[in-house]
């Protein structure tokens, strides 16, 4: 066991865990942040996606030791008080079915729009191709990303 100090959603958190513990399990089992989901533990499904310094990252593939020094953002911190335009678009388009993958979908989409505010259809599906949705809500996910992109453009033309 070792002590690690992490920056999560703007707060400093210290945990005492084995160094190889994936960030996913530190978030879920130690920091009680359960919005980030376990889907496969191999990086195949994207349910555990968080941001490292704004970049979409698989928390199940990141040992806690590797998370130190990065600004980590999880679904709980995505909206920073208010809803992120993507979260609002997800509500407006009624995207979730079972909903289990949607935190990961949102985090990936947020990283995309931060870097590419006006993505093409191809850029949207390319960015989200690694986030599996077992309910196959893909059609509405694409529409919601487009809607959020338009909404963000409307606010900051």
């Amino acid at each position, binding site marked *: 066991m070792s002590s690690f100090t992490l920056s999560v959603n703007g707060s400093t958190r210290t945990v005492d865990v084995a160094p190889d513990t994936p960030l996913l399990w530190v978030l879920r089992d130690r920091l009680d942040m359960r919005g980030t989901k376990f889907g496969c533990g191999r990086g195949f499904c994207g349910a555990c996606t968080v941001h490292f310094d704004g970049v979409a990252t698989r928390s199940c593939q990141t040992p806690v030791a590797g998370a130190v020094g990065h600004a980590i953002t999880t679904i709980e911190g995505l909206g920073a008080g208010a809803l992120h335009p993507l979260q609002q678009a997800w509500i407006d388009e009624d995207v979730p079915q079972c909903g289990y993958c949607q935190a990961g979908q949102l985090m990936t989409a947020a990283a995309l729009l931060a870097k590419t505010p006006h993505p093409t259809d191809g850029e949207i599906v390319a960015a989200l*191709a690694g986030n599996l949705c077992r309910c196959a809500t*893909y059609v509405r996910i694409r529409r919601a990303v487009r809607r959020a992109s338009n909404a963000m453009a409307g606010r900051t033309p």
Partner: protein
Amino acid sequence: MTAARTISRRRFFAISGTVAGGLVVAWSIPGCAATRSRRAFTPSGFVQIDPDGQITITAKNPDMGQGVKTSLPMYVAEELDADWASVRVVQADLNRDRYGGQGSGGSDNTPSEWQRLHEAGAIARALLVTAAAGRWGVDAAACETEPGFVVHRASEKRASFGSLATDAAQLPVPAKAPPLKDPSTYRLIGTGVRGVDVPAIVRGTPLYGIDVRIPGMLHAVIERCPVHGGRPAQVDSARALAVPGVRQVVTLTGLDNPTHLRPGVAVVADSTWAAEQGRKALAVTWDEGAGAAESSGHLLEQFRALEAGGGLKTIRTAGHVDSAWRAAATKVELTFQQPFLAHATLEPQNCTAHVRDGHCEIWGPLQMPTSGAPVIANAVGMPVEAVSIHITRLGGGFGRRLLSDYAAEAAVVSKLVAAPVQVIWSREDDIRHDYYRPAGFHHVRAGLDGRGSLSVWHHRLLTLSRNRYRQSTNGPEMTEIYGLLVPQSADPADTYDPDLVPTRIRNCRLEYGDFPTTVPTGAWRAPAHNFNAFVIESVLDELVHRGKVDPLMLRSGFLGDRPVIPKTDDASVQYDPRREQNVLRLALEKAGRQPLAMHWGRGWAAHYTFGSYAAVVAEVSVDGNRLAVERLVAALDVGLPVNPLTLEAQTQGGALDGLSAALFGEITIDRGRTVQSSFDGYRLLRNSEAPDVEVHITPSREKPMGYGEIALPPVAPAVANAIFRATGRRITRLPFAAAGFEIGAPRSYGL
């Protein structure tokens, strides 16, 4: 809450107050006891109206994404004339006395909950109207409701539901349920209502079984024999126990029925990660059992041997299939191979249990809490009354969670370690130890006579049976023949299984055979329909092609033009071939008849599943070995559409789930072991591979039926038929990827 005691004591609709002076209506199937004696009186839920106007409606059944946590409360709100914005929905716990049976399966919630939930809302509304009329000194019949208000137009009086709640709570229970609304006056049903959990989902709020946290809770993972049907022989836990955080290692012996509980070795620890590290350090010697001799590569040979050996069971037969086959002017003979499928719910199986003081408390994603409770009770040797279940949201179901084995595991481990425990499956556990869609083999001979009518249909189904696997006393064929064609009986006293399709085919025979297996099998979304539709619709397409007949004419010829299935368990639902024809016509019309480019093909299929009708048109492109599904057009008739927003979602998702399975879905077994273990080997459709799905709903006032499984069955045959049109190649073995296709992305996403 006071309502609970009130209801279990008084076996009819019951009214009571809340501490804060609100109105609580709990209900049975009351008044109905006289007219529907088979169901007698089963209490089933409640609505609460607080003086501040807050309306709380209980969602009795589990939601796994199909939307019943939203759509069933809509029934209550509609008859109550509630303002949906003031409705809060809470998930019910398992409560036999208050809610009756609780579970979600067979797309049955939509029709089966209709009457009682509507009556509950109507009673609450009648009480509020009576209270208002009494307060104003007017005739109740002269009062009406607007969302959230009782109104007396003549005197221009209005009172909010909240302001009437305390008075209404003092009123006696109406002797019988008030008349229900005329559907033409619905304000809520038939409008698109967003999922009640969606705002919480997008914020990452803990909602799922895996998110449950109980004070003092330990985390457990279970190592199971890699060979299906095997069990631990020797366990050396010394190294596992040395892993920091690991508390105990306990052995599960399993139950005789493997769908209830399978054997394994549980590692219990302070955290999920520690439990997984402990598992890696386990040394277990397995008694592999007979399963080690089974490989899916042998199945085809086994099915063919079973067919050649004769002794198949004839399910239905009419006429003379052999002579009609010889005489047929157009003949099609095809065989089909049906692979095992995994469910792969994205939330892995998990459950949390606390067994103590003669009580077993469960928190988890149970799809069938009512039928799961006795399984859990049996596993821990307690009476079923000792089991209480808190139903969480389910991160997917697809049929996997019809079984409650993972809850039994949690209960047994909690009992053994005397602490609250969350059992969690890894993805590898989930893929390797699923209860798979049974593998099977179909052999069909079908022919047209000289006039182009379907004159012979001879279908042999050789399969594994989930009914046999689960040790059901019902026939092993009963779970595998859904949706297959059978001859209409000449005997009017005959009843049909509601999930068979009686036809006018003069020479028609359905034969069946299976054998036992150690490979676990279970229900997979649109069970049996999900492959049987592929077989039927592929053969029909081949007949259309070879016989050069009109596809709609061919169908109307053998399906007829009037309702024909007296459904044995609910006579009010009949298979109506006209409705199937209509959705196929609608899908074809919406897809259009414009010519496609070279190497493109358009195919279609229709199917009747659990009381609803769906047709799908698929357009594909085949460029060398690269197959892309470019577009799906779906048309549905589900009776009165309850929540069109969810219906559209279930159609998009169901169609793409069907596509995912058809393109990639295959579990293989090698010497008793499942070969695939995660999403690298067991591929799911990706966003980039998913075409747009256009959804068209037939307006209808017919009895509302479910729509969680309906769009799926026609997809695989529509794609196969499109590939045939593009290439002349008839694919009869799924998945398509196994036919050598590389799966590509559609050209457009229709955004």
